[in-house]
Each structure stands twice: as structure tokens, then as C-alpha cells.
């Protein structure tokens, strides 16, 4: 069977290079594409969803080349971006029914729209014009629009940016339910907790390249070993020394920390995904997990 997403040496420049040869293959499950602002996440999603043509490289969704057969690829994926793509003058339900008919769902469009409005807790709001919706409601309706068909691959470009914590949780629950039902999801995010909460696999995009790729544990391990930390009563770090955890290394690290006041304590810290993200997405050398 073809992989859900295959990205082969994709490059794209505007005034500056945005993507410099991205390679990534994803079979199934939830992949989080993590990167700082301007890392190229949205450009990559736009290329995969046939909205933007790359300067070079190839990409396939479910085995269908998005450049050679964009219409074929569009039957296999759905996308919900950072900006909502709804018709403000129509009601929520009218939006879904229209998109359903354009997908070719025919008579099923209305039934399907009602089921999704119910699922997204928009059943009563569905009769109102989208212009009256809050940000969270728009995002949920937009997500519903992406779920009208049964997309093999769902792209979510920063699906929770700008949402309040409750709406954010709801979107997370929806993504988990979809993944459990077998939909392959590629989501982009700037936040670690989102990647950690939802993804089986995390790829970090920096300066237009994938600089790390693996599970949260693998990425954490990749940024290096543990540190011996001298900390004050509040847990704030005073000094630290690297260690690989062996007795000899710990003794050496303790010596490196030097003389300490009475109220300071020593702790052994493992790198967190935060450390990995800071190291991988914002600076320091490339690490392959």
C-alpha cells in the first residue's frame, strides 16, 4: 500500500528560500510538524494540499502525485488551515451542505452535515450565519467541513492557534478520535504540548529543512544526556554540569559544580521535550534521532 504522505526533496522560494529540500515519508497515524514562526510549515502544507506549486521536488498523497494529478489528490485529503475558509453569508449548515455537494456526496450531504454539526456541538448554531460565530465555532465548523467526506489524510495547519483552552481541548479530542478511526493526520504546531499530546511522531522543521524526526522520547534523547544541577530552595538552577549518568561522570560533575552554600541542593535532570525543541527548532546543530 502507498504511504499516506511522501515528500521528496520539496523546495520553494519566495523572496528568500522557505523550503530547502524537505524529505519526509509518513505511513499512518498522527505526525506533528513542529517549527518556529516562519519555519515553512504552512508553505509545506500548502504545497501538499495543491494550493501552491513547489519550485522543485515531488509529493504524493496516498500514492497520487499532487503536482501531476491535483484533482485526484483532492479526493483523498482535506485541510483545515489557520484561517477559516467558510462563507460568512451562509449559515453553518448551508456551508457544510454546499461543500458536501461539491464533494459529490449528493443526497448524503444534508444527513452528513447534520451529524457533524451535532458532533461539533453546533447543532443549534448551524441555523445561524457564520458571520455571527466566535473564533472557536468557526474553527470547529471548518474542521467539520474537512470531515464531510472520509479523507485518507487530514491536514491541520495550526488547528488550535488563537483558541481558548476549552476549544483547544475539543479540537484535540476530535483529532484523537479521527486518528483512532484510522485517518492519517499531519498537523503543524508551534507548541510542544500539542505535538506531545497528539502525535505518534514529531518532525521538526527549521530553516526549510527537517532537522529531527522521531517520537517525543527519541527527540528528547537526541539532544543529549542528563545534567547535574545545583538548585536553590525554589528549584531554580544555579549551576549545572553535563553527565552521562555513570558514577565516575557524576563524581566529576559534582566536582565541576564546585563549592555550594548550605541551602543549595543537587538534582539530576533529564532533558525535556522543551529542551529538545529549543535546541532543535531554534538553534544548535542538527540532530538525527
Amino acid at each position, binding site marked *: 500500500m502507498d504511504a499516506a504522505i511522501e515528500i521528496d526533496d520539496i523546495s520553494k522560494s519566495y523572496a528568500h528560500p522557505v523550503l530547502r529540500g524537505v524529505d519526509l515519508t509518513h505511513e499512518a497515524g498522527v505526525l506533528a510538524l513542529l517549527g518556529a514562526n516562519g519555519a515553512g510549515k504552512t508553505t509545506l502544507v500548502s504545497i501538499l494540499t495543491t494550493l501552491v506549486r513547489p519550485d522543485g521536488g515531488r509529493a504524493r498523497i496516498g500514492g497520487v502525485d499532487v503536482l501531476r494529478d491535483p484533482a485526484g489528490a483532492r479526493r483523498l485529503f482535506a485541510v483545515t488551515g489557520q484561517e477559516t475558509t467558510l462563507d460568512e453569508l451562509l449559515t453553518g449548515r448551508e456551508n457544510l451542505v454546499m461543500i458536501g455537494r461539491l464533494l459529490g456526496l449528493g443526497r448524503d450531504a444534508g444527513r452528513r452535515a447534520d451529524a*457533524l454539526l451535532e458532533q461539533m456541538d453546533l447543532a443549534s448554531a448551524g441555523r445561524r450565519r457564520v458571520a455571527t460565530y466566535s473564533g472557536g465555532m468557526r474553527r470547529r465548523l471548518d474542521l467539520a467541513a474537512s470531515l464531510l467526506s472520509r479523507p485518507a489524510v487530514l491536514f491541520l495547519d495550526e488547528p488550535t492557534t488563537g483558541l481558548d483552552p476549552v476549544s483547544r481541548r475539543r479540537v484535540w479530542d476530535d483529532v484523537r478520535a479521527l486518528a483512532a478511526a484510522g485517518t492519517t493526520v499531519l498537523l503543524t504546531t508551534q507548541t510542544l504540548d500539542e505535538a506531545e499530546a497528539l502525535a505518534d511522531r514529531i518532525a521538526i522543521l527549521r530553516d526549510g529543512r527537517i532537522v529531527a524526526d522521531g517520537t517525543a522520547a527519541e527527540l528528547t534523547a537526541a539532544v543529549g544526556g542528563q545534567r547535574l544541577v545545583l538548585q536553590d530552595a525554589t528549584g531554580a538552577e544555579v549551576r549545572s554540569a553535563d553527565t552521562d549518568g555513570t558514577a565516575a561522570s557524576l563524581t566529576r560533575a559534582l566536582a565541576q559544580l564546585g563549592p555550594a552554600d548550605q541551602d543549595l541542593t543537587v538534582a539530576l535532570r533529564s532533558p525535556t521535550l522543551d529542551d529538545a525543541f529549543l535546541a532543535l527548532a531554534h538553534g544548535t546543530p542538527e540532530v538525527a534521532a
Partner: protein
Amino acid sequence: MTALDAPRVRGTGPLRSGTVLIGRSLRHSLRDGEGLVMAVALPVMMLLLFTYVFGGAILDDGYIDFVVPGVILTCAGFGASSVAVAVNRDLHLGAMRRFRTLPIRSWTVLVGHVAASVLRNLLATAIVIAVALALGFRPTAGPGRWALVVILVALWILAITALFAGIGMIAGSPEAASGYGFVLLFLPYLSSAFVPTETMPSWLRPVAEHQPMGPLVDALRALLIGGADVQLLPPILWSLGITAAAGVLVTQVLRRSQDR
């Protein structure tokens, strides 16, 4: 989970997606109450203004018979200009982004706007003609000539709507789109629509007689209130030419916007 019992994407042909999108645009027209009122009220007010206020100064008698074709065409301009805003709104407020990821052809979205506008404007035109008849407009045209009038007006509406769709695509914002459209609305005044061209300075007369609306107004007037010589070809060629040019513009801009 609902994703599992969701129906498969079957896709649609341009005909069916076009129908869905025309329905969408017609719904917009009905929702946009102000736009609808403007599309009908403005031409009616113009008709009253020209008939009762300016008419006496321009022609001694029968000015309403003279001015109706011009009012009909100005009305089409007003009505069609809203397409520029609708198209621009789709491009800049995200709806087009969704349409472009669906298995449909992007241009069917524009077809929806244009077709809905043609229907809306033909309706507005019918209302204007009804008001004109009530005010004393007495056309001499028989059914055949009326059919030609409808064809000429529909072609002109199509042309100017397509042009406004193109303007909507290149304008930077919905506000700008409505601003560009304004220029086109002055075109009827620089023709034989409201005053006989013989009253214009000699250097202006050729412009007024040969700009696209000149031949159109003359043809409509000849068909409606009688005239020995009806020139159908020039207005038809103008309308088709403008439609074709706007079509090329729209296709180019659509293609380029994907290559961003």
C-alpha cells in the same frame, strides 16, 4: 466515530458544481438586502430623475422613450459591480482556499458569481422596464424585437459582469474592488444614452459614438421605439469581445495565484 460511516468522495462534474455554486451566489444576493435594494432602487430613481428633472431640458417631448435604454444599461452596471466585491471577498476571506482543495474546477466558483449576477440583473431590468411603462414609456417593438432587446441586454450584462469579476480578482481588497467598479459606471454618460451626441463638442462625439455603449444604446433604442437602421453586429461583437477578454484575464490570474 463518524469518520468511519462518512460517505466516500465521488467528485462532481463542472455542470453539477456550477449549479451548486450558482445557488450559493443567488443565496448571497437574497441575503444581501442592501445590495438588492440598490440594484433596483437606484435605476428606478435615475429613471424618475431623468424623466421629470432633466428630461424637459434635454428634449421637449418623449424623453422617456429616449432615455430608457440608457437607464437599463446603467442599471446593469450598478448590479454587476457587486460581483467584483463578491469575487474579491472569496479570494481574500478564505472561501476560495477551501474551494481550491475540493475536487472541483476553481473557475466554476466564478461561473457561479457571474451567472447569478446575470439572473439578478435581468430581473432588475424587468422591474425598471415595468416602472418605465407605468411612467409613460411606449415602445413600438413587437415580440421579435423584444427578444432581440433581451439578448442584447443579457450579453451586455454578461460582458460587464465578467469584467467586474476580473476586477474583483486583481483588486487588493473588497473596498478597492468596489472603487475600481465605479469608473465603469460613468461609461453610459459618455454616450448617446442620456443626451443626443449631436449636442457634444465635435472632438468628443466620435468617442461617445464608438465606445462600447454607444452602438448598444443606439441598437436598443432603434429596436424599442423604432428606427429604420438597426445595427446589431457592433454591440454583439463588443459584448462578446469584452467577455472573452475578461475570461482570459480571470484565467490568467487564477493560474498565477496558484503559482505563488
